[in-house]
């Protein structure tokens, strides 16, 4: 069984059709890259997977480990191991990053019937991961993402991912706004999490990120559906030729 199966997914936002019968199967241990021009529906797919409620699914299924998750609220999807790294992580003044991390981790553990993590164990884990991502302790005491640079916000997303240990990680343009050094830090963070049990859907415009997070499968999304699937060579070809041919194919 695939870890993620998206079947004939149709989605509308404000009455406008964005996804048009999208099909996608992702198996454990694999990294899928999802590429495509602006407006092709990449971010919509990410948000629909995570459960944002202003996206209306008119048809289709999303199965996580064979279970349809479309009826579940976002927090239950998260507890089942789905994680969305946001393209634009939000700032939450007044909610300390540490409080946020601990609340999220313990809420998920509770939902899964596991014990809450002890404070020393929690702190140990956070310090360990934060250290690898170059996130200073002082930043963790601030409000979530408050006063963080674009790169710091993205690293903070990876920190959350590493701490929550999801099964399916969806990265929504995690490379946007990152310089090359920050990109490497983020990619290293992702690569450390690669495991036979975990899968990634990496959404990106550019091939560059895929030099660092090497995908097993590359899909091209256009007008709300996948129009081509290949291996990592496809991303390199796209870099050379652009998306124009796929947009025409649909027309």
């Amino acid at each position, binding site marked *: 069984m695939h870890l993620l199966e998206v079947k004939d997914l149709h989605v509308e936002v404000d009455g406008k059709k964005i996804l048009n019968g999208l099909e996608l199967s992702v198996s454990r241990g694999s990294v899928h890259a999802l590429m495509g021009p602006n407006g092709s529906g990449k971010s919509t797919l990410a948000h629909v997977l995570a459960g944002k409620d202003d996206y209306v699914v008119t048809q289709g299924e999303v199965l996580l480990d064979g279970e349809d998750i479309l009826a579940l609220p*976002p*927090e239950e999807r998260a507890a089942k191991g789905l*994680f*969305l790294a*946001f393209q634009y992580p939000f700032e*939450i003044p007044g*909610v300390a990053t540490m409080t946020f991390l601990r609340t*999220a981790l313990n809420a998920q553990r509770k939902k899964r019937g596991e014990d809450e993590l002890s404070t020393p164990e929690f702190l140990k884990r956070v310090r360990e991961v934060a250290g690898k991502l170059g996130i200073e302790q002082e930043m963790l005491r601030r409000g979530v993402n408050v006063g963080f640079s674009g790169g710091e916000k993205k690293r903070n997303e990876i920190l959350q991912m590493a701490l929550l240990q999801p099964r399916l990680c969806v990265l929504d343009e995690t490379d946007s706004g990152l310089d090359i050094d920050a990109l490497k830090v983020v990619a290293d963070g992702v690569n450390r999490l690669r495991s036979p049990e975990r899968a990634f859907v990496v959404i990106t415009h550019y091939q560059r990120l895929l030099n660092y997070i090497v995908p097993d499968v590359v899909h091209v999304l256009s007008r709300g559906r996948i129009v081509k699937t290949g291996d990592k060579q496809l991303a390199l070809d796209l870099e050379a030729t652009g998306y124009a041919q796929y947009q025409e194919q649909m027309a």
Partner: protein
Amino acid sequence: MNAEVRPIKTAAETALAQSFAAVKRALPGAGAVGALREHAFRRFETEGLPHRRVEEWKYTDLRALMREAKPLAAVPDAAAKACAKDALAMLPAIEARRVVFVDGALVPELSDLSGLEAGLTIRSMAQALAAGDRGLLAHLGRIVPTDDVAVALNTVFMGDGAVIHVAQGAALVQPIHLVFVNAGEPASVFARSLAVIGKGARAMLVESHVGSTASEDQVNTVLELKVGDEAHVDHIKITGAGAGALHVSTLMAAIGAHARFNEFLFTTGGAVVRNQAFVRFDGEGTIAGIRGASLLKGRQHADTTLVADHAVADCTSREVFKSVLDEEGRSVFQGKIIVQRNAQKTDAKMATHALLLSETAEADNKPELEIFADDVQCGHGATSGALDEDLLFYLKARGIPAKEAQALLIQAFVGEAVEGIEHAGLRDALMDHVVAWLEARG
């Protein structure tokens, strides 16, 4: 010219007038105190209870809200004191010297009046009034004079309260916690307190108003506060459960030069609450924070009416008020900053924010600036709205259930105001109160 048409007195107005005629000889203080009462009564008689056509009372129409006037509270009996003890157990656990008033009367056996720190005196207002104390009369009604009718009514009937004096240079380590408990039969309570803080002194006053949850009491409480030059004073008023069916409270504070003053108004209880704060800056170089938070549900109504009068140059004030409104809760904020003609270099900023958790909640925000000087920095901002859906989604996407996600955001919202309290223990106690309020939400 038409003569002003006086409406027929309401039942409550008539009852108050009759009550004064009946009890005035029994109220503490004769002579000068009696004259103060008579003078205030004439003010009340002319104006009646404030109503919606009086601009300052537009959103809290006391004449309409006060259908009747409860009888004056009796001296607390053993049952009332026992009941008060239960309420005391519910108070925030802060290390403080407690002075307890039950139905407006000082109860020494529930209070900690022994071993006062050097430079501190605490007396009963009723006794000081009865004795016609000259030091008291020098200040009573004179610190920030007002013609507000609620204050006049308090003066008419003022009973007991605390008279606190902190000597010049005395730095009190322990906060003073004035606890007003409504315990007996439904009644009118008129508490009056005075605190004079000497030059360079340090003091923290906490004032809690609590009682049995279904309190039908009508409470009118006044604190006059004089903060000396270079003094550092915090006053935190907690209007908790059982604060009364009608709870009108007035702070009149005059702040000296180079002083630090922090005011905080925290409201979760009471059915109809009006918190008035009249603060005047009398000396240059003073820094003040005037903040508050109200958490309201059911049909609670809480009105905060603030006047910050920058009468002299070079003072800084920050006003931050937050309200969280659930069900049919309603908050009113009227905040006025006055900058007098010679109050140059005034730096005053006022913000009022309301968070509406239901479709039926209501927030009325009315910030005002009256600026007569030309070299000042003043500003105000007002917002009201719901919780941010994007932030809620972000939290939920991390596995945090909706209710908990809301609670985190609400705590952060209130926390921004509570952070202004310097005393860490009290800050924590108030945030615990916020958490309890959130947990009790249906």
